Every structure is written in C-alpha cells, then in structure tokens.
C-alpha cells in the first residue's frame, strides 16, 4: 500500500532540514523503504508497498498436563476461544497452536508515528502548547497528513489530528487542500509548492545563472530550504559602490541579504545582484525595488563605517580591546593580543609579524566588523593597508583567521602563517589551561577547528617547530589526534602508516609528512610488507626475551659465519652510509628483506650459549632501532593480518 506522511510546521530553519530527513529515512514502515522530501513548512515521507498487515504467526500455548484429563483440556480450549479439537496432547501436556493474526499496518503506524515524529533530534527545540511538559519540536506543528492507501492513519500530536488536508504556499496557495496519495504532489504544485528540494535547487540554479549570478553552493542550499516556490530576479545598484572593497560588497550581498553576486569578469563585481524570492514572480517590480533599497541602505552603512572607522587608526585601537571580552575567565582581547604578540616573539616571528599580531584584533572595535562580523581580519587587513602599514603586515592581518576550514588554504605569507599559528595556539593553550577542552560534540570555542588550523599551517607551511616545543600534556595529545585526522582524512594516508610514523617519534609536522610520504611510496613494493612482518617478529622476540638494549655493539667474534655474519655486515655498512633521504633510506631498508629472511631461516636466535644468544638479540635490537627511525614498521598492518 502507498503511504504518505506530511508534517506541516511553521518555518523550519533551513540548515536543520537535511539532518531531520536523514532521521526520517530510518522510519519503520514495516519494511517499506521511505522516500523523503521537504520544504521549510513540511517534512514529507512517502513509501510504496507498505504491507497491509504484518504476517500471521503461530504461537504455541502450553495447556494442562494430559493427566488432568479431557475436561481440563476443553476448559483450556474455551479459555483460548477455540474448539476443543484444536487442543492436542504433546509430551505429557495439552498444547494449542494458536494462529495470531498480524496487526494491521494502519494500527501499527497510528501507534508508532507520533513517537517517531517527536523523536526527531533537533539542535534546539521549543514547546508551544501544554507548558514545558508539552511536546517539543523545532517549530510548532500545525497540520499532519497521514495516509495509508485511501485511509487516514489516525493519531494526534500537540492537539493536531492527522488527516488528509494539506496547505499550499502561504500567500499564493490555498489554506486547506484535501489530498490523496496520488494527487498530493501535483495538488501542492497547483498551490505553488514545489515539494522536491532538488527541483527547487535546479530552478534556482538555472534562473540565477541565466541572470548572470555567480553560483555559490552554500547559498544555493540555503535558498533551496527557505523557499517553497523559488523565483530569481535581478536587481541593480549604483556602480559608485564598487569603490568599496569587493570583500565588503560580497559579504553584504551573500551573508546579509542572501543574494548571489554578479561578476562582469572573473573576480570583478558588476553592479547587479540576483535575489531569490519565495513567490512566483514580480510583475510590478516591487520586490526588485524593495531589495534594491535595502541593499543601498546596507551599502551606505558599509560606506559610513568605512569612512568613520578611518578616523581612528588600528594602532590607536589596541587599548579599546580591553572592552571586548575574549572569554570571561581569560579576559579581554587586549589580554589575548598581548599573549599573541609574546607568542609570535617566542616563535621568532619578524617585526612585521609582531606588528601584525599587535594590530590583528583591532578591527573588532570598528563599526564595520561590529556590523559584518564575518569580515573580521579581512577588514583589519584592508584598514591596515589603507593606513599605510607595509604589505607583509596588512596581508598577515587580512589572512590570520585562515584556514577557516580543512578545505581552506593557509595564509599565503610567512608573517600571516606565524600570526595565525600564534593566534590559534594561544586560544588552545588558554582554553586548555582553564579546563575548556572540547568534550564529545561540545566544542563552543571551536577548538577543534583551531587545532586543525595549527596542524594544517605547520605541515603546509613546513614550519620548523617541533610539536613538543609548542604543546604539552592534554593539548599535545589533542594536537596529535588532530594531526592523525588531518593526515588520514585530508591527505589520504592509511591509519597504520600514520601510526607507524607517529610511533617512530614526534618531530616537526613537516618532517612527519616527509616520512609518511616516503613510507606510503615504499609500501606497495614487494619487499616491504614481508619486512614489516619480520620487524613485528623481531619486536616479539625481544619482548619475550625481555631484552634490554644496553648500548653494546655486536661482538663480531661471536657471529656465526653465513646468514648471521652476512646480516651484521649489511647492517654495519648501512649504519656507516648514514643515508638521510627518507625515500632512499627506506629503499635500502627494504633491501634487507632477503638477509633477514635467511637469518630467520637458518639461525636459531635462542642459542643455548647465553653469550651467543645475547649477541644475537643485540644484533636484532640494533637492526630494529636502525629501521625504526622513519617509521615503526611493526605498526604496519600486513596483508596476512588483514585476512585474519
């Protein structure tokens, strides 16, 4: 049977809708697979082939013992509501194979749907009826359509009874539309609701593109889920505003007004914008005019801020940072600035970097950043440039929040890299010092992102700081965890490769990257995995023998000629060469494979003579430690192990 559930609500925040649908995808429809759709005012689940009822099943009921006689048997049958002939003796007892008819789907769903709907997890919920003990949802539920075939699945949530009445677009559609499953989507369309989010997305994309919009995928997603009937229109603004920095104009359009920017050529803004309405058209141009007026006011604000902010230079705003809280327990941005400047100094940043660090947060006191907060840093950089700060300084300020995500690039200059590093590292150190390390999904200070940024800068700028020099204790562990995440998820190294390199020592992140690259390159070669397996064997042998390396060298006179002496000679030559290039060194190590194999083939490590045994263990121990300077091969998961 066909199934339709429409949860009709007041406007749901756009960004929460996809996650809610993911949860509804798990809705139990007696095995039928749900398909999902949503607009800001409705979450919709449809399915076909929902069974009409659950299959019948048989239950075996044990009755009185046979010894109790037939009278007891018929009493049992009567109690179960069956003919006495159905009760049969088995194994000394009467028993009944009772047929339990499967429950009807409509009854099951009427029972399960209210719970399932209210079980949807939202980032923030509200109550709207029945006081705080009332049902909680993201926004009030105002209607529910619940149909199985022709029938209404009867239930009630928050005083709203399920039915077959939906609602159209707020302004263009009808308030009350009786629907069946077959005509549901077309009825909505007739009432100016495009149910399919992919159809809305494509409509916006196509119309906006035709109007010259530079399509921004995050904005496209937002617009898809704040409209039921999207239509794009183009508006214009006075080209005089193009004198303002394009960063400012774009932010105003995209983040504040949800407009697409229009470019005349790549990277050059044109004096137009594309707005997406939640209605079918703008025949009188009223919406266009309205949006243009709003944008003009916004641009005027920006120009006002741009002009008035210049009256006080960034350098004169450092003291004002004392009035802006960084974190209640950690003090103001002035305190934070002092920390960052000191840290840049400690990290041997040059005077440009120190100047940039000093000015980096000053834009927080400007009207522009108070109004357009996502422009922090960028505005500071632009102001510093306008106020004659040298390029390395203003550029470092401009870019010091980068990278803002794992996909974002790191600052482009050494000064920017060091200021960004110091800023993030200071935040991490300060927060960890007062016990604000992130726990589980809670990370109010975005410390994971800060740590990712630290890792990304250290690796990609190839900075020469050892991790141990930058952090200790929990913070060191946290950074190592983020480093593993970065190398695995962003760079695609295998988890055991990352572990192997980590186990061989925490150095600078650039060095660890080099070692990882060399390891990943050697890994597919034929000698490598068998050698890794041998390393594991050596480690186990040393462990079993409780061997403690005492720094003694291998005693040549105790070596048996043949495989043992051969291996020792190779090792001595290898040590003597002292190859430092990771790739070549690994190649040479893997060339040990036949010698190691032969050794294990022919030589008994556990020799009866304790002196010889100790000498052999020393040989193996030296071999392992020479091999393990780049990566600890015993961490490598070899093919044989994976099969296990």
């Amino acid at each position, binding site marked *: 049977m066909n199934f339709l559930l429409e949860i009709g609500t007041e406007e749901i925040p756009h960004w929460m809708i996809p996650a809610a649908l993911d949860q509804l995808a798990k809705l139990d429809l007696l095995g039928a697979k749900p398909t999902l759709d949503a607009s800001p005012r409705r979450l919709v689940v449809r399915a076909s082939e929902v069974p009409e009822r659950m299959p019948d099943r048989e239950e075996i009921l044990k009755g009185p013992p046979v010894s109790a006689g037939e009278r007891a048997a018929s009493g049992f049958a009567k109690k179960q509501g069956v003919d006495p002939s159905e009760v049969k003796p088995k194994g000394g007892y009467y028993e009944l194979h009772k047929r339990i008819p499967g429950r009807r789907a409509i009854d099951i769903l009427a029972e399960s749907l209210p719970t399932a709907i209210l079980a949807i997890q939202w980032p*923030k919920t509200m109550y709207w009826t029945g006081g705080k003990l009332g049902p909680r949802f993201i926004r009030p539920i105002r209607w529910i359509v619940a149909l199985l075939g022709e029938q209404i699945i009867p239930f009630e949530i928050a005083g709203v009874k399920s039915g077959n009445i939906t609602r159209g677009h707020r302004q263009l559609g009808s308030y009350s539309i009786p629907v069946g499953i077959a005509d549901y989507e077309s009825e909505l369309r007739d009432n100016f609701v495009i149910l399919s989010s992919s159809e809305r997305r494509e409509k916006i994309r196509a119309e906006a593109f035709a109007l010259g919009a530079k399509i921004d995928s995050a904005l496209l997603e937002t617009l898809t889920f704040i409209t039921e009937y999207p239509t794009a229109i183009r508006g214009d603004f006075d080209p005089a505003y193009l004198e303002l920095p394009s960063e400012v104009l774009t932010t105003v359009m995209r983040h504040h007004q949800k407009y697409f920017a229009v470019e005349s050529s790549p990277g050059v803004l044109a004096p137009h914008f594309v707005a997406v309405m939640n209605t079918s058209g703008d025949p009188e141009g009223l919406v266009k005019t309205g*949006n243009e007026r709003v944008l003009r006011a916004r641009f005027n604000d920006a120009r*006002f801020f741009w002009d008035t902010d210049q009256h006080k230079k960034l350098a004169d705003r450092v003291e004002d940072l004392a009035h802006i809280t960084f974190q209640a327990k950690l003090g103001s941005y002035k305190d934070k600035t002092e920390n960052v400047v000191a840290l840049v100094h400690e990290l041997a940043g040059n005077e440009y970097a120190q100047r940039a660090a000093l000015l980096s947060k000053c834009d927080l006191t400007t009207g522009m950043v108070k109004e357009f907060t996502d422009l922090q840093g960028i505005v500071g950089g632009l102001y510093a440039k306008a106020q004659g700060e040298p390029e390395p300084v203003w550029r470092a300020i401009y870019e010091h929040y980068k990278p803002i995500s794992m996909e974002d690039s790191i600052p482009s200059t050494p000064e920017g890299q060091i200021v960004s590093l110091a800023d993030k590292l200071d935040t991490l150190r300060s927060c960890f010092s007062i016990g604000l390390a992130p726990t589980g999904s809670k990370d109010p200070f975005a410390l994971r992102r800060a740590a990712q940024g630290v890792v990304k800068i250290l690796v990609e700028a190839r900075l020469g700081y050892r991790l141990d020099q930058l952090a200790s204790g929990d913070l060191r562990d946290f950074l190592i965890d983020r480093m593993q995440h970065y190398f695995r998820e962003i760079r695609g190294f295998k988890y055991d490769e990352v572990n192997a390199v980590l186990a061989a020592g925490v150095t600078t992140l650039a060095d660890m990257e080099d070692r990882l690259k060399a390891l990943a390159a050697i890994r597919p070669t034929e000698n490598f995995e068998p050698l890794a397996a041998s390393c594991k064997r050596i480690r186990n042998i040393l462990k079993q023998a409780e061997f403690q390396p005492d720094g003694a060298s291998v005693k040549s006179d105790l070596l048996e000629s043949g495989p043992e002496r051969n291996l020792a000679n190779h090792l001595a030559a290898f040590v003597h060469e002292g190859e430092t290039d990771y790739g070549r060194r690994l190649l040479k190590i893997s060339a040990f494979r036949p010698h190691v194999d032969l050794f294990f083939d022919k030589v008994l490590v556990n020799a009866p003579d304790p002196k010889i045994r100790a000498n052999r263990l020393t040989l193996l121990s030296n071999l392992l430690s020479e091999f393990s300077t780049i990566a600890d091969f015993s961490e490598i998961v070899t093919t044989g192990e994976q099969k296990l």
Partner: protein
Amino acid sequence: MDCFQDTVSKLKRYWAGCGCIIQEPYDVEVGAGTMCPETYLRVLGPKPYRVAYVQPSRRPADGRYGENPNRLYKHQQLQVILKPSPDNVLDQYLASLQAIGIDLIKHDIKFEEDNWEAPTLGAWGIGWQVMLDGLEITQFTYFQQCGGLDLDLVPAEITYGLERISAFLQGVESVYDIEWAPGVKYSDVRLADEVEFSRYNFDLANVDRLWRLLAEHEAECKDLLAAKVPLPAYDQVLKCSHLFNLLDARGALSVTERVGVIKRVRDLAVGVARVWMDQQAPAQQEAA
C-alpha cells in the same frame, strides 16, 4: 500614502480587533518593548493576556548623531503579546501587514530563523526575523523562559520596527525623510534629540555619576524587593539596565565590570520575576 502616525494607528486598531488591550508606552527608559512590565511580567504565570503598545526604545550605543539614515538612538517598536499564542498566529500577523496596505501577493515574505535572548532579563525564545523584500520588518518570538522561569503559556511576541516599515511604505531612503504627520517629517520631530542624546551618550554622560546612580537604583530595587512590591522594584531594574547601556556606550566598562553588571541586573530582574510570581499564586488558587 499613509504617514507614520496612520500606519501606527492602523496597526493598533488591527490588534485591538484581535482582542488586544492597547497600552500606552511605558514611561521608563527601556532598550526594547520586551522590557516593559506589560511583557516582562505579564508573560509569567498561567493567566492569558493580549496586549499591543508602541514603545520608544533607547539604545545609547546605536546613536549616530543623526548622521546615519538608518540608525537611531531611539526607535519606535510596536510590541504585541499574544498569550497563549493562537494556532493561526502567523496568519494573524500576515493579515496585520495587509491591514497597513502591504499586498502580500505582490511581495516576497520570508521567515528566517532568529532566536532571541536577553541575558540581563533571564529571557529567551525561539523565532524568526520576518523579511519583506529583503528588509527585516519584524521580530517574531515564541517566549520559552522569562526571568529565569519556564513559561506556563507560551506567548507569541511580535515586534515591528515602525521606522523601517514606514520608510518601506513611503519609499524613502532615510528614516528622517519619513512623513510623520501630513507636512511634518520624522526629522522635524526627532532629529534634535538624536543629535543631542548621541552627544550625551557618547561624550557627555558623567561616568562616575552613572556608577553612583547604578548603585543607588540597585539599592532601591533591593529594598523594594524586600518590601515585596515587584512593580516599583521593576522600574529600578529598568533604570539599572539603562545605566548599564549608558556606561557601555561611554566605553566605561572593562570586561570584568561588564560581566559583573550584567549579573547584577539579571539578579534583580530574576528577583522581581519571583516576587511577582509569588503574588500571582494566591490569585491562581482563587481561580482554581
């Protein structure tokens, strides 16, 4: 074309028709219509209430010496409280826009997530900003908590920005060009106090005296709370809140002071809410 005062009276008339008491503005400085006792106290407890009023709202830090066409130290809100919120509350709201001459079919209306929180009042709610052709014209909030107390009947709070709506309806670029009454512009009525109060808020207010006044009003509030008179006590909370805003605009608050004063005001506000609720309790028992 409607002048400012026409639009205001049409909105009041509309909400009166929806069963609201039409109150007059509260006569103590507030930063928003929410802070008036008609909202702050009336939303507490189990008694239904519907009220609408214009509230001039003072935000010292928002002043721009009358130079910015869209920023005001003091703007006017039309505040509507529907307690409990009716099921069709958004439809009622949209009809109010029709009532002031906005043909909804010809415009683009969006409800965009915007939750509201006022730490100094221990209050928060869930809602939207209502966008009309890209212009934010209304803040809509379902109150969840007020004075640190969970609410028995969830009220809808609808706050219209009257200058913005009038500028939109009249098609003017600057609030100062709004026609307040026939032949009288907004600037004729209000420009002088924008200029002078910006000077006062940013440059002239005597910081030491503000601190002393804050302490005095706080002390008065505590005495009044001890005497179990929440309404006069609440006036003192509003005085403290406004003094805090003035100190802030003067740049006189260090980080720790800021946190400290917010907490002092919040403690007073929460105290008032408690005493008010205690007084409601006997009435509830009578009703039961």
